[in-house]
């Protein structure tokens, strides 16, 4: 009799516990159901989900909520691809505004062979850490140290450290701008992705000083300024700056520049200039 009694006990106790837990959960799932906006799920789907915070919200889910409430525009998120952005506009049924995407550029071309080092640095592999040692071990105090602080931050890991300097892989860069703050030398700019001429140097010193520390540094000779037909180049504190709006992408400045430090990053479709060739070659290595 005892065995049957014991089996009955066990099954009844477990059965009842299961039942009341079941009722509890079922009721809870019914009464506590959060009236979730159906669009929210699809929006979070469309957003890249990198939670990088570039749009200023605390993550894609938060961004999706604000998009649903109309407090944010699809373009706020720099990471979403073109197709996703259209998808979002369709979900929110608003007209998609045109907006060209940006791409990060590192304004320094002083690779190890071209820009010598002042001392051997074996500390932490981080530019900010290296900065504490007298601004880093690179002869040119404004040049890229190449320890990858920007690479560490990049959510799409599009920044590659190649023979001493950081280079952006333009196909993967999402233009989120996280690397801009990360770089202690402030060398990184967000420039329009399609077509840009950029000056691969930020050293404001006189030409004489620049030659001492780098073989390709901009010696602010002004030849590019004179030769530019659209007069888009101005010399700001010792470095040539190309005004992207007025630049007609003729490429004259790149040819005339004695230091070959103006890089033209045309679409890969067009014939790449010499610099761009070695740049892409270097990247694809």
């Amino acid at each position, binding site marked *: 009799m005892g065995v049957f009694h014991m089996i009955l006990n066990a099954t*009844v106790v477990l059965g009842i516990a299961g039942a009341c837990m079941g*009722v509890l959960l079922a009721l809870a799932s019914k009464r506590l159901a959060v009236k979730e906006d159906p669009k929210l799920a699809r929006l979070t789907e469309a957003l890249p989900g990198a939670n990088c915070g570039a749009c200023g919200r605390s993550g894609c889910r938060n961004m999706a909520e604000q998009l649903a409430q109309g407090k944010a525009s699809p373009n706020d998120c720099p990471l979403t691809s073109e197709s996703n952005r259209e998808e979002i506009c369709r979900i929110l049924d608003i007209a998609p505004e045109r907006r060209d995407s940006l791409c990060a550029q590192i304004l320094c071309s002083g690779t190890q062979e071209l820009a010598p080092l002042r001392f051997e640095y074996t500390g932490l592999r981080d530019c900010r850490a290296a900065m504490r040692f007298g601004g880093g071990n690179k002869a040119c105090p404004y040049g890229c140290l190449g320890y990858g602080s920007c690479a560490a931050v990049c959510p799409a890991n599009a920044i590659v450290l190649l023979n001493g300097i950081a280079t952006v892989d333009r196909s993967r860069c999402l233009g989120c701008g996280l690397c801009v703050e990360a770089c202690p030398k402030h060398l990184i700019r967000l420039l329009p992705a399609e077509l840009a001429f950029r000056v691969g140097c930020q050293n404001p010193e006189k030409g004489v000083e620049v030659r001492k520390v780098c073989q390709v540094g901009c010696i602010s000779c002004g030849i590019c300024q004179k030769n530019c037909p659209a007069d888009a180049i101005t010399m700001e504190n010792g470095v040539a700056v190309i005004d992207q709006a007025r630049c007609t992408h003729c490429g004259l400045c790149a040819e005339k520049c004695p230091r070959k430090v103006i890089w033209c990053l045309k679409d890969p479709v067009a014939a790449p200039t010499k610099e761009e060739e070695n740049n892409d070659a270097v990247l694809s290595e």
Partner: protein
Amino acid sequence: MTLKKLTSQLRSGSVWDIASRLLTITFLVGLCLAGVYALTSPVISAREEQARQSAMSTFFPGCHFTQISCQAPEVERLYKAEEASQCSGYCALLSVNGYGGNMEVMVAVNADGRVRGVEVLSHSETQNIGSLAAQESFLSRFKGKTADFGLVQAPNVPDENQVQALSGATRSSRAVASAVTAALRAVENLAVAPPTGEEDKLLPSETSALKNWFGEVIARPVDLPAEHGAAVEVWQLHSPTQLVGYAVKTQTVGQNEAFKITTLIGFNASGAVISYEILESFELESFTAALLRDDFRLQFVGRTVPVTTDGGENSVELIPNMEKSCRAIVKAVNDGLQTVAALQGGAAQ
């Protein structure tokens, strides 16, 4: 949220449907578990019982064990090992918390209250470290120890009444040590603790008398034999491990015929008189004091044969002009002797 709405929701399909499915699942699980338990629990308890019996018989070969009640919290079970009605020791089963979890320890205690042996029945200590505490090499260190043995850490050498703990397994060795101490304490308490109610009908005066004659004993009343004379009550006196003696309460008529003198006489295990005490007497004050004086009382000590007053070789001298009271004591002692002899089953002489 009114109750009506709540109950309506309860009746609505989905809630009940979910709950019933979960109920069936838990019901099924409960059913098959109960089945497995029914199948395995007898096997488990049998094996544990068998392990326990074998452990006990290794300590007390040839004994049979009776479980006795024990108040100590840690002691799960306490067995008394008897060999031909002679108590040869105790076995205590304890469960203590070791490093890895619960530990079942069996402690065997000799009749004299010293450790006879220790065995760990089950433990879940860490392999090769805590488990060393369950091996013979460590357990044999407890042999012969009394309840107040100390546990010393590995480096320093233990003296006679100390046990050296295992280096690296302090928690496990402390657990075993605590089990042994608890067992010894429990056996000790067994003797001191007043035995269960019905044994102890002794008056305070009686127990104090017994205490200074025999020390700590338990008095167990025994029914009077056929010819018990003036004896009214008889107790067998047990120390924790064996019979120590007898106590007989007698009522005899002294000088004052109206009231009897109540005397308590103590006998050792072999039936010889140890001493006597007058519990209640209505004789004259001086008479009672005289009867208790050593010069008269000591004559009775050591007697195993009834005493006479005729001046023969085992006669006693009566105190002049209070012969009646003295004869009352003589009769009390003789009847006591007679009762004890009858109890012991041997011939009186």
